[in-house]
């Protein structure tokens, strides 16, 4: 069956790193990803099923991996070769339409008793992703045994599968996984009902995070940075109060929070950092610049939530220390505690949000697997090209019906 396979191949990987540094997504041309005829994965035990993807999204973390930009940190946590794709809506053999919750935690690895995080329902924090009955892999799409969404079919543990209601389109359903990340990030801020939040970046993650913030904290003030006009208007549509260019962040947060400002030069009137600032900043970019900006605009004892996958960054941490700012990560999802004390699975909250906020509008274009280079390049330059989420469309692949 057709699949896009990622192989560890150091020289090719180095070439991708080089190419990726010139043209984002170009790593797909020379890098370690290629279209192969793969075998259908074997099911590890009776708790696993075959899923045939309908739509399968391309995530920023996928692009970072392909372009050779992801951290060496992940190398022991994945197993090669793997088939990427973790944002999936697909069909089970009995015709049930499902979305994949891709984390490969203790349950799917048949580890009993499960690790502490899995016991607490915090699947994303599973401590045993390199142990158990299947090979290492933090998610479907990074494990050599399961296959992944960028293919005709892959294997999934029944605990990973969420049936999709009839009323939800494929286009909406494929947005549930990234939306769950946004829901988790929004709820991680622990913000007061009338607080202020700054969201850095208005790509897919930024936009779903804004939508989640607006839904769970109707009265907070949300400021978003957006590089492109369509991102700006989507950010405002989805609930941001203010959307501004990234280089305007300091002045804009200062205005929103009625803070004073400090100039590093002798030039009064420049805003280099704020005396107060935003209660929380959600960084959906994860670069040295974005985290440094976040530190400049977070109030003392405020919180920075890193949602964008950072790599190696170079940051001055003095403000973190002096202002007692918390810097926390938000990786995937699990179980959330809501303001009213109730507990819910992030995925269920995300499914509701995708529906109510009509997040299917964020899916901008789909490609067949055979045009994977175009698809990856489009995804890598999505903002620039007026797009948000790019996905593979497998619904008309002929091989699908042969399974």
């Amino acid at each position, binding site marked *: 069956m057709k699949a896009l396979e990622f192989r560890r191949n150091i020289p090719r990987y180095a070439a991708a790193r080089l190419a990726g540094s010139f043209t984002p997504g170009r790593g797909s041309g020379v890098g370690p990803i290629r279209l192969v005829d793969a075998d259908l994965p074997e099911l590890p035990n009776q708790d696993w099923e075959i899923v045939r993807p309908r739509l399968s999204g391309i995530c920023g973390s996928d692009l970072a991996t392909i372009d050779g930009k992801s951290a060496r940190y992940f190398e022991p946590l994945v197993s090669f070769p793997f088939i990427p794709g973790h944002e999936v809506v697909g069909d089970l053999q009995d015709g049930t339409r499902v979305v994949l919750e891709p984390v490969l935690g203790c349950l799917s690895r048949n580890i009993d008793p499960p690790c502490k995080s899995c016991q607490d329902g915090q699947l994303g924090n599973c401590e045993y992703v390199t142990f158990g009955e299947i090979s290492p892999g933090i998610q479907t799409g990074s494990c050599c045994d399961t296959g992944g969404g960028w293919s005709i079919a892959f294997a999934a543990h029944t605990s990973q599968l969420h049936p999709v209601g009839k009323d939800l389109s494929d286009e909406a359903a494929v947005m549930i996984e990234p939306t769950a990340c946004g829901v988790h990030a929004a709820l991680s801020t622990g913000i007061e009902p009338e607080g202020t939040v700054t969201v850095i970046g208005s790509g897919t993650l930024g936009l779903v995070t804004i939508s989640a913030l607006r839904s769970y904290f109707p009265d907070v003030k949300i400021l978003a940075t957006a590089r492109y006009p369509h991102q700006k208007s989507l950010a405002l549509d989805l609930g941001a109060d*203010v959307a*501004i*260019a990234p280089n*305007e962040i300091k*002045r*804009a947060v*200062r*205005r929103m929070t*009625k*803070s*004073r*400002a400090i*100039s590093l030069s002798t*030039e*009064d*009137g*420049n805003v280099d950092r704020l005396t107060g600032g935003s209660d929380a900043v959600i960084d959906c970019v994860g670069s040295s610049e974005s985290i440094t900006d976040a530190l400049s605009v977070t109030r003392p004892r405020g919180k920075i939530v890193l949602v964008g996958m950072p790599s190696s960054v170079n940051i001055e941490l003095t403000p973190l220390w002096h202002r007692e700012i918390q810097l926390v990560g938000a990786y995937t999802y699990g179980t959330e505690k809501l303001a009213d004390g109730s507990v819910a699975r992030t995925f269920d909250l995300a499914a509701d949000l995708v529906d109510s906020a009509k997040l299917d509008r964020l899916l901008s274009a789909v490609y067949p697997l055979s045009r994977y280079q175009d698809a990856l390049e489009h995804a890598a330059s999505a903002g620039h090209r007026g797009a948000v989420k790019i996905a593979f469309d497998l619904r008309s692949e002929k091989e699908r019906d042969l399974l």
Partner: protein
Amino acid sequence: MKNEKNLAPRPGFVLDVDRTSPPVLFHHGDTFKLEKLPAGRSRVIYPPEPLEGLRDPDSAIRHALENPIGDSEPLSALLRPDMKLTIAFDDISLPLPPMRRPDIRQRIIEAVLDLAAEAGVDDVHLIAALAIHRRMTEDELRHAVGDRVYDAFAPSGRLYNHDAEDPEGMVVLGETPHGEDVQFSRRAAESDLVVYVNINLVSMDGGHKSTATGLSGYTGLRHHHNVHTMRNSTSFMDQENSELHASNWRMGKVIRDAGVKIFQIETTVNNNTFGRSGPLAVLQKREWEWSARDRASFVAMQKGLDVMPSSARRQIFNSWEAPYEMTSVQAGEVEAVHKITTENVYKQQIVEVEGQTDILTMGLPYISPYNVNSVMNPILVMCLGLGYFFNMYRGKPLVREGGVVIMSHPTPWEFHSVHHPSYIDFFEQVLADTTDPIEIERKYEKQFAEDEWYIHLYRNSYAYHGVHPFYMWYWGSHALEHLGRVIIVGGDSSAVQRLGFQSASTLPDALEMASDVVGPQPTITHMKNPPIFLADVK
């Protein structure tokens, strides 16, 4: 060689452009352009030539102080040893460009202080009446009042900038019948006499506005510095038809009724902005009268400027001091004084013009009232063109309703962060949202006016008050309502777009774009300004 100074200055002139007319010099920020205007349907308005200055300004000042106009005693009769005397004077925004030393303010203040000393007055304060403009630096104050006065008063804290945000330093004297709060400097209000020293560069300056605006703050200013007032001031340069003027006059009455005694000193200058001779003299000559030497010096200047970075050009122009000469001085009761001053301003500036045209073109220079020793940011470009130049009329605007204004200026996306911090925010936030003055006023004015950081910078640094960019935009609101389109030639296109205007790379392109609005073969007026003139449009 003819000595031009001995010829009687000629009045303003309206040139009908024909095929033989030479190209017209357009100011274009800190550079210049020579533009050909379409023959047969264009006219160029030239300012009157500079009037002769007073031969002995110091004795004219002394004479004015002792021979007051209107219901006022001579200044010396108003002074007594135990009194509180406050001398308030115009700030850095006047005159434009700054004038050569000795500044008129210095001459007058020295004369007033001489009389005060003779009368044994000890308690004297000198205040730069800057309302919500930026504070003046020591150099600027020294330039305005002279070193002798500065050294005698500043070190002891008796010469200082007005601070409209000092909670202890401001009082509300009352309310006009229109419900306008009259906010005033406490020191001035508690003085036995306030002497106000004016330089009346344009007809809007002076009168009750000197004190009612210059010594006021946001609480008072908001009653006339707003869209409604500006749209009902047609124009604000014409006292008979200016709501801005009317509001200041109502406030002046409240100030008088509160017992504040004002001795008003007003002066006019000629329009000798660039000199009768010297490196910039060509800028105030009519093109068909340029000599071979004028042409050569213009070409050399153009070439020199072209190869300079803009910061160097800015430095050169910022260092230009105009050889203005005082043409009149009158002192005494505010309204009586102002009547005569206005006549004297008109004598220098009025040009009679017949009717309106479809298009008004203007070459905007490097300076406006709010960027002396600073940067002319895009908001100031808008204000200079649509606030000041457009309003330099009496009767009706030079351009018809629904017509087009074409302004030539590089309009860089550039700000002086010390002087104009809130302008940066206004440009990034407010204009990104809307350019409609009414909506801007309703949605954003209060937030900016009350922003503590701006207030801090206004009081302690050299920043214009947070609300100031709003006033710049309101200044242009009458033009925005009147016009069908505004086009900027040779500007930074993203900055021009943020202003809500259209961008053209050349004047012919702009004229082409304008005809979409006003039709083919439009009639055109070009204001050859500066030097400043006031069009009396019949």
